[in-house]
């Protein structure tokens, strides 16, 4: 097929507009570079009344919010979920991998939980601690200045706690706990579990004059219409556009297929399919920055085959796609009788829990090597589709009749409203070379681009950790007189399928040795100096934290390096 060329050559082409790509766009344009930002989905602005999702009522949707076209519900700010029409992915043998893709400006930062945790000193050096996996080639001190800058620029609410592996930052004050969170605190502390204010990229106090301050509607998952939460669109791409004075071109609905190379095998741009006309186009650039998400960036590299790069670009080590890993997860829910018959008041609060538990134990004394943190949910939430299903099933805990209809419905629905707490353990898995994504030899998507095939198995390290999560939740619930609503039995203890926590990383991992890693400590391909990866791909290990804050800090650091290297004419 003919590739449509354009004479313009950008300094940098960035593929993907989420956390990593958004940050690179901001820093590179602020430093005077010309940038083409490629996004596979449409333009999205949470403040645009036609796209706005926050502050909608359940009855403004004819399905009352049911997740018919969006897996997490009608008002969830993600265009795309575990599956996309015409864009399949495959699995090898009995692998069960779920791959979330948000095709829109800002990507998954529009819908994420805003949990913004720095990796601690130990999180970069796990092999030195337990002998498993690998150390990162950098440490906390290398990243600390960038975490500080991200805190100050984007904003994160939290509190100083002086815990070695949960480093403090520049926090905005956190919000007071809700009632069920006070119950959680009581039960958890009695079980010896540390509880502290959450660290969320939600602006509880004014951070600049371009963004609003949180007004506690609890709708962060819908992407904030006054920009009081961190989304890459509102906090990075829009400010970059305002400041770039024509140096930034945003290409939406543009699906990047591969990195282009010149006749000597040196990358010199990208090739993409314009979804509007289905034709192939080329963007010329001195530097290519991939930020399409860990798996999508690996896919682009693997599909960038040429005589000089027979295995795909950056893959002389055969490591592209390897060491794919997600956070672990196991969930439980409990009924707390003391939370029955509640007086109602506006308890929406922030768009995630106000309190959480960081990892509090020493793995040397346990039968699994890595930790987890605990997230909780509950309270007097908005009644969406699904509210009131099996409306009086909790009667069984009192030996009362279940079922019926009539006047009792109102009474019993109100009796149980807000009386449950949801627990989610989110932990660190051990990266494994045998868990990977690769190009499926037989399947192409609707754009003609070869798709990914996943191969992934959990080990006993993760299963034993999930077992411990369940035991912890049971202790906490027992301490506050509650009842578990389900059990996680069986060999996996409710361990979720890989991909389901949507923290997949590791596919272009960082290292000093080009034989065992894909990028160096500046996220620069060992095999091509002018190509960088700034999404979760370069993570050597995904800590028991959420990855976004580290993606942002790494991308900022890499972007500064790109500016310097271009100045020195090294790339």
């Amino acid at each position, binding site marked *: 097929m003919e590739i449509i060329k354009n004479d313009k050559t950008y300094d940098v082409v960035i593929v993907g507009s989420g956390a990593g790509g958004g940050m690179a766009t901001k820093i590179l344009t602020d430093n005077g570079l010309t940038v083409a930002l490629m996004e596979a989905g*449409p333009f999205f602005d949470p403040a645009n*009344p*036609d*796209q*706005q*999702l926050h*502050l*909608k*009522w*359940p*009855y*403004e*949707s*004819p*399905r*009352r919010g*049911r997740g*018919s*076209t969006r897996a997490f519900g009608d*008002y969830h700010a993600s*265009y795309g979920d575990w599956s996309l029409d015409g864009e399949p992915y495959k699995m090898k043998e009995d692998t069960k991998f779920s791959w979330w893709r948000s095709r829109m400006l800002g990507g998954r930062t529009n819908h994420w939980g805003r949990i913004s945790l720095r990796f601690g000193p130990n999180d970069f050096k796990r092999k030195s601690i337990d002998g498993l996996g690998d150390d990162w080639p950098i440490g906390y001190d290398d990243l600390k200045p960038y975490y*500080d800058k991200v805190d*100050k620029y984007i904003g994160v609410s939290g*509190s100083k706690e002086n815990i070695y592996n949960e480093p403090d930052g520049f*926090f905005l*004050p956190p919000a*007071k*706990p809700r*009632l069920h969170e*006070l119950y959680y605190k009581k039960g958890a502390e009695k079980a010896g579990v540390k509880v502290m204010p959450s660290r969320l990229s939600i602006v*509880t*106090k*004014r951070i600049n*004059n371009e963004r609003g*301050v949180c*007004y*506690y*509607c609890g709708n962060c998952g819908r992407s904030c219409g006054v920009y009081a939460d961190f989304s890459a669109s509102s906090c990075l791409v829009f400010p970059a556009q305002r400041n770039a004075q024509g140096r930034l071109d945003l290409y939406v609905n543009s699906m990047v297929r591969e990195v282009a190379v010149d006749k000597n095998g040196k990358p010199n741009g990208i090739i993409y399919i314009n979804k509007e006309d289905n034709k192939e186009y080329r963007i010329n650039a001195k530097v290519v920055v991939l930020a399409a998400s860990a798996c999508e960036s690996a896919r682009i590299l693997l599909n960038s085959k040429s005589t000089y790069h027979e295995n795909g670009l950056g893959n002389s080590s055969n490591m592209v796609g390897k060491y794919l890993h997600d956070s672990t997860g196991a969930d439980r829910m409990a009924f707390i009788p003391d939370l029955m018959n509640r*007086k*109602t*008041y*506006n*308890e*929406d609060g922030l768009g995630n829990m106000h309190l959480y538990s960081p990892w509090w134990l020493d793995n040397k004394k346990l039968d699994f090597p890595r930790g987890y943190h605990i997230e909780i949910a509950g309270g*007097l*939430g*908005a*009644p*969406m*589709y699904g*509210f*009131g*299903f099996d409306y009086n099933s909790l009667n069984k805990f009192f030996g009362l*009749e*279940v*079922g019926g*209809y*009539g006047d009792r*419905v109102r009474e019993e629905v109100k009796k149980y*409203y807000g009386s449950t707490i949801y627990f989610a353990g989110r932990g660190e898995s051990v990266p494994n070379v045998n868990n990977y994504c690769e190009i499926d030899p037989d399947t192409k998507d609707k754009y003609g681009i070869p798709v990914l095939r996943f191969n992934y198995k959990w080990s006993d390290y993760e299963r034993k950790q999930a077992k411990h999560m369940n035991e912890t939740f049971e202790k906490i619930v027992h301490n506050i007189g509650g009842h578990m609503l389900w059990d996680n039995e069986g060999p996996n203890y409710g361990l979720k399928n890989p991909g389901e926590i949507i923290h997949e990383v590791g596919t272009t991992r960082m290292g000093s040795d080009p034989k065992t890693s894909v990028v160096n400590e500046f996220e620069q391909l060992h095999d091509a100096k002018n190509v960088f990866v700034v999404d979760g791909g370069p993570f050597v290990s995904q800590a028991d934290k959420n990855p976004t804050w580290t993606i942002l800090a790494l991308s900022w650091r890499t972007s500064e390096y790109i500016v310097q290297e271009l100045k020195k004419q090294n790339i």
Partner: protein
Amino acid sequence: MNRRDSIKTIVIGSLASGLVLEGCLPKEKEAIYKNIWKYKYGRTPEELQRDLELLNQVFFSKEEMNTIRVMANLIVPPTAEGTIEQAEVPEFIEFIVKDAPSYQEVLREGLQWMDATATEKFGNAFVNCSETERKSILDQVAFANGEKTKEEAFFATMRNLVITGYFSSEVGINDLGYKGNQPNIWDGVPGDVLEAHGMSYDKDWEAKFIDQSKRNDLAEWDEEGNLIT
């Protein structure tokens, strides 16, 4: 053309082309058009097209819709707080079975079973039975314990949809007492609620939390990361 105009064009284009609304009378077209603008909730063009197609289909007959309405009124009886009709529960159920077709068979067969049972026992269709007669039919299937029969599964499904439809409506939300979804300042659990639950905010914790009187002061920190504004 801005985005709002482009979405309008898609809708009007679909209406004008007659492809989607084939067979509709002009009045019905107008009603559907109104419906689309009633539900303005940040859809993508693909989602909007899907809604349009579903709103243009009819699943339940007028008789079935009337049975659903009567049954829903028994499940959540009308009060001064709100009614099934105000909550538009039958309309919600009509939409959801097209949105999630797995509901169709169980509901349609269940409605048929109700009428067949009513006719057999009382010589009338369900809606023409007395309230006592209707309740005696519902009572047969409303208290499922463990594994459900087909009829019990029908009732449980209908009850779920009626209750969810009622409480997710404007009147239902007020009835429930949900007070959120509006800009406000959260400053902790109300004092009387804390007291009733024997809870309090620890003294050594209080200082950590936001002083809401300073929320609009631009954040500044010292070098150690201590907030100074």
